[in-house]
Each structure stands twice: as C-alpha cells, then as structure tokens.
C-alpha cells in the first residue's frame, strides 16, 4: 500500500469512528457537548470534515455533503445542475499541453498530463450522469423537496431553463470530442482518442435522449400545472358568480352536435335480464330451477263456484211474511206499561201472566228483559232473597223490578 493509500484509509477510519457526528452534520449543524463529543468534533474539524459555521456550531464539508447527497439522492431545492463547461475548458488546456509535451519529448510529464486529462474526462462524464440522476429524482418525486405548489412550479420552470443549458453543454462536448479525436490521430496519441471516444462519445446519444426526455416531462408538467391553475381559477370564478347572482339559475347557450362530448352526460341504461325458459342448457336449466325454487309460494286462489246456469227472476207480489218474536212483542208491551206505571213491575210476575212466554225459562227472560229495558233507560232493581247468605260471594236475586226512570236532576 502506498503512503497516499494509507492516508486515505486513516481518513476513512476517522470518519467511521465519528460516523454519528458525520450523520448528524449531514442533517444540519452540530454543536459541542460532553468531552467525548467535543474530542470527536475536534478530530473531524482537524480533518476538514467539519467546517465552522457559527459560535460552537459546525457543518459538514460541502463536498462531503454533496457526495452523500448523491448517494442518497437527497437534493436541495433549486439545486443547480453541474456545469461541465469549466471542466471541459480544463480538459482542453490539458490536451493542448499534452500535445506540446509529446512534441518536445517530455514523456514523464506527458504521462502525468494524460492521467490528469483522464480524470477531467471522467469528471465530465460523472457530472453529466449526476445531472441526469438529479433530474430524474426531482421529476419522479414531483419536486418532493418542497411542499408548496407554487414553489414546485417555480422549480419546474427553473429546471426547464437548467436543462436547456445542460443540453448546450452536452452539445459542446460533442464538438470537443470530435476535435480531440481528430487531433489525437494527427498527434500520434491514439490512446487519447480511445479515451474520449469510450468515455464521452459512446454515451453522447444516450445522454442527449435522456435530457430531451426530461425536458419533455418538465414541459408537460409545466403545461399541466398551468392547465390546472386555469381550471381552478375557472372553478372559483363560476363559484363566485353563483354566490353573487343567487337569482340566476344558468345560461341559455348554443349547443350543437360538434360541442365537446364531455358536455353530454351519459344516461343510465337500466338492464333487466329475463330468463330464457326455452334454454335447455343444463347450466341454464339448473339456474332456472333454482330461481323458481326461490320464488314465493303461489297464493291459493279460492275455488270458483260452479256456474249455476242462467238465472230467472221471479217477481211475486205476495208479501213476505215476517216472523214475529213473541218475546219482542211482550217486551214492547212491558216497556209501554212500565213507562206509564207509577210503581215497579215485577218481571217474573208479568211473565207468568203471558201465555206466549211460558216456554221461555225464567232466567232467560230476566236476562233478556233486564238488558233491553236497562238499555232503553228504565230503572231495574234486583229483588234479593230475604235469607242472607252467611258468606256472600255473589248477590243472589230471584226477580227484577222495573220502573220508569226518574227525571234527571237539573
């Protein structure tokens, strides 16, 4: 291992030792605390990993932050795309010097310049790849580094501009690659031609197409966002009109068949499938039987009486003989008598005088006459037996007396 490689290992070991502080600094600034923490900050500060930011406040070296941000695809809002024009200029100078050194025969220095040019070429390629990754990340998350819509829109516009410059850079690389490739053949440096062709020219078309894709997406998003703004403004305008003009219901507008199809709302077409009873397919037949089984039981229809045949209307002048109930007649007479009598009339005594009532049992007569007379407004009194029941449960009576109702008290 070379001395330089050893140093790199030490640096990485120091970073690993204080990984917690590095991680904290990636999120924001770090400040001192206990003794162990302070010594960690000192160690990182001496390695230039932390840079002083404020009183007892340190931030991560921007280059290290950038490396981590690339790794985690975590980008700041409005982060500029990397310009490759500076690196390309550097590569051009290196190429010019390399050719001069080759001409004068300084092989050792030419070798160093070749390494430096290689590094510059790799950096150009890396910057382009980085820019594409950044664009893809931002576009796929819809500029997720900000929540505010207007900020998203501004970022979209910003990157639309950035992509234009990026495309210009890639086109400038085309010119650079062609020139270096031609000059490398002329100068007898085919390895440089191979370098630029492999690292840059081979990927040129892919990069250009990817940038143009990103540009198309950004433009579309921008258009959609603008369209959306227009829609919402329209919505708010019509809503405001509805609120201000409460007496107006709508507008009489000219509509024709060429109007937007979206205006014609679809009407519901009701579907009601009917079973095909003639379908003898086993599945259809089983389904039909199952449907029949689910049907409610048939209502029993009352049997229709047999037709008695034609009817003949017979008109008879003979009077219909009315059957007269003797009890009714007797009761009518009794009520007449009771209405005019001054004293009470015994129902049993009165019954026994009537021959037509001899077949009627006493109990039946008493119940019938009592209810009818009471209903007609007569006073009825139960005549009790003189011998008192020692344990009276029912009031026993043997007769009922009826008399005319007293006039109601005023």
């Amino acid at each position, binding site marked *: 291992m070379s001395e330089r490689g050893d140093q790199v290992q030490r640096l990485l070991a120091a970073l690993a030792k204080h990984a917690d502080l590095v991680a904290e600094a990636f999120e924001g600034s770090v400040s001192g605390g206990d003794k162990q923490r302070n010594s960690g900050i000192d160690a990182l500060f001496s390695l230039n990993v932390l840079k002083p930011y404020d009183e007892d406040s340190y931030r991560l070296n921007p280059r290290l932050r950038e490396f981590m941000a690339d790794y985690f695809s975590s980008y700041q809002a*409005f982060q500029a795309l990397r310009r490759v024009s500076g690196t390309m200029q550097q590569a051009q100078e290196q190429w010019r010097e390399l050719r001069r050194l080759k001409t004068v025969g300084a092989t050792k220095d030419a070798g160093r310049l070749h390494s430096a040019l290689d590094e510059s070429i790799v950096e150009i390629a890396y910057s382009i790849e980085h820019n594409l990754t950044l664009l893809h990340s931002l576009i796929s998350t819809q500029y997720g580094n900000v*929540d*505010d*819509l*207007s900020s998203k*829109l*501004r970022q979209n*516009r*910003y990157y639309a*501009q950035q992509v*234009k410059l990026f495309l210009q850079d890639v086109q400038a690389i085309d010119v650079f690659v062609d020139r270096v490739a031609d000059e490398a053949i002329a100068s007898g440096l085919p390895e440089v031609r191979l370098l630029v062709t492999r690292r840059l020219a081979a990927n040129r078309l892919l990069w250009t197409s990817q940038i143009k894709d990103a540009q198309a997406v950004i433009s579309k998003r921008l258009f959609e966002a*603008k369209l*959306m*703004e227009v*829609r*919402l*403004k*329209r*919505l*708010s*305008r*019509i*809503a*405001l*009109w*509805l*609120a*201000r003009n409460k007496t*107006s*219901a*709508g*507008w*009489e*507008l*000219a*509509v*024709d*068949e060429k*109007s*937007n*199809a*979206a*205006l*014609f*709302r*679809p*009407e*519901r*077409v009701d*579907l009601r499938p009917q079973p095909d009873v003639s379908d003898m397919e086993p599945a259809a037949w089983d389904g039909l039987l199952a449907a029949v089984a689910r049907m409610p039981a048939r209502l029993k229809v009352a049997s229709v009486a047999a037709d008695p045949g034609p009817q003949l209307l017979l008109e008879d002048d003979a009077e219909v003989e009315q059957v007269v109930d003797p009890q009714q007649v007797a009761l009518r007479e009794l009520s007449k008598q009771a209405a005019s009598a001054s004293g009470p009339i015994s129902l049993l005594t009165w019954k026994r005088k009537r021959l037509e009532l001899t077949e009627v049992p006493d109990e039946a007569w008493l119940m019938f006459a009592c209810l009818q007379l009471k209903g007609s407004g007569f006073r009825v009194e139960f005549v009790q037996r003189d011998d008192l029941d020692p344990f009276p449960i029912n009031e026993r009576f043997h007769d009922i007396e009826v008399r005319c109702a007293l006039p109601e008290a005023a």
Partner: protein
Amino acid sequence: MSARVLKLLLAGEYICPVRYRMEFELLGDTSEREEVDAWLLSLGMRLARLGDEGAFFLAHDHIGQKEITQVKNELLKFRDEYGPAVLLLDFIRQADAGRVQLSPGEYIVLYQLDAAVSQSSMLETQLKGLLSVITNAAMRNTNHENLRRLLDHLARDGYVVLANKDTGAYQVTGKIEQLYAVLQFLDENKVVPDTEVDDREEVQEDLVDEANAGEGAQS
C-alpha cells in the same frame, strides 16, 4: 370483453383509475377497447374519454336534438345541475390554501379541512352559508360533521370516493374532469365576464426565471 365494464358504462359511470382501477386498466388495452366500442356501436353508443388520458364513459354515437336539448336545459338550470358541486369543490380549494389542485387521484383529508375551518372564521361562515346546498347538513351539527356531509355529498355525486374511512381521506375521481369540461365551455362562451371577479391572482414570474432569461440573453 368484460361484462363489468359494459355494466358500468351502461349504468352511466365514469371509469377512472381512482374509482374503477381494474376496469380502467382493462380498457387500457386497445383490443378490449375496440371490442367494447363495437358492442356499444350496435346500441348507437360509443366509448368516449375525458381528455386524452381521462376517465372512460358512454357517449351517443350520434348527437341528436334530444341530447342537445338536454344539455341546453342542464346549462339553463346550471345552479341545480352543477352548482352544488362547483360551490363545494371551490370551498375545498379555498380551505386548503392553494395546495390542493382538485385533480383526479388527489387526496382530500377531512381533518385537514376541519383544521382549516377551525382556524378561519371566514371559512366557518362560508361553510354555514353552504349548509342549504349540502345534503343532510344542519346548523346544529359541528363543523366536522358538516364537513363530513359535504364530502359525502360529493362522494354521492361521484366526484370523490372514500379512500380511507379511519383517516377520513377522500380521493378525487376522474369524473371531476367532466365538470371542468363544462366550466371550460362556459368560459369559452364568456358567460362570466373577467371583470366580475377580483380574487384571481396572476402567476408571478419569479426572479429565477428573470435571471435565467437575462443570462440567456447575455450569452
């Protein structure tokens, strides 16, 4: 050809990826779409779409006088036909302070609306003014309850769909683009003069754009 797709179309539904994801994906297949279209053609209908990538819906193959009269009547009674949806969606737009775009697929969260209304007496007053428009809303209800009914109203009309009952998240469906198409038609007919409205704000060109424009001009 999916029977479910046909039934939805005949039921007058808008098949969008938010509400009917599977059916929408089926219609994404060109051959399926052609089959459905051919089937509908025999009924004098066709498969139409809102915009280039929007929801699918059933349209008449030939627009007749009856359909024209129907649309004219709908525009004549705009307040009853589309007014509630316009007012309720605009209320959501205002409550969400510019973040919500009311585009298909977007989420509207009930508690966020509730928080916005509780922090703004203006929104609260506005919500109370909309109670007559919202189905089943009432003055005695809490704001939260009335907002829920507002979203349920929009869900019944098919403009949003309840995505998560627990969080009260509703998702805007593709049908909203039909409403936007009607509003665009109104705009094209200049029914509401621009001067009548003053709450519109122009998109401000930002300094970054200006700087870039300047840089571009110099280079």
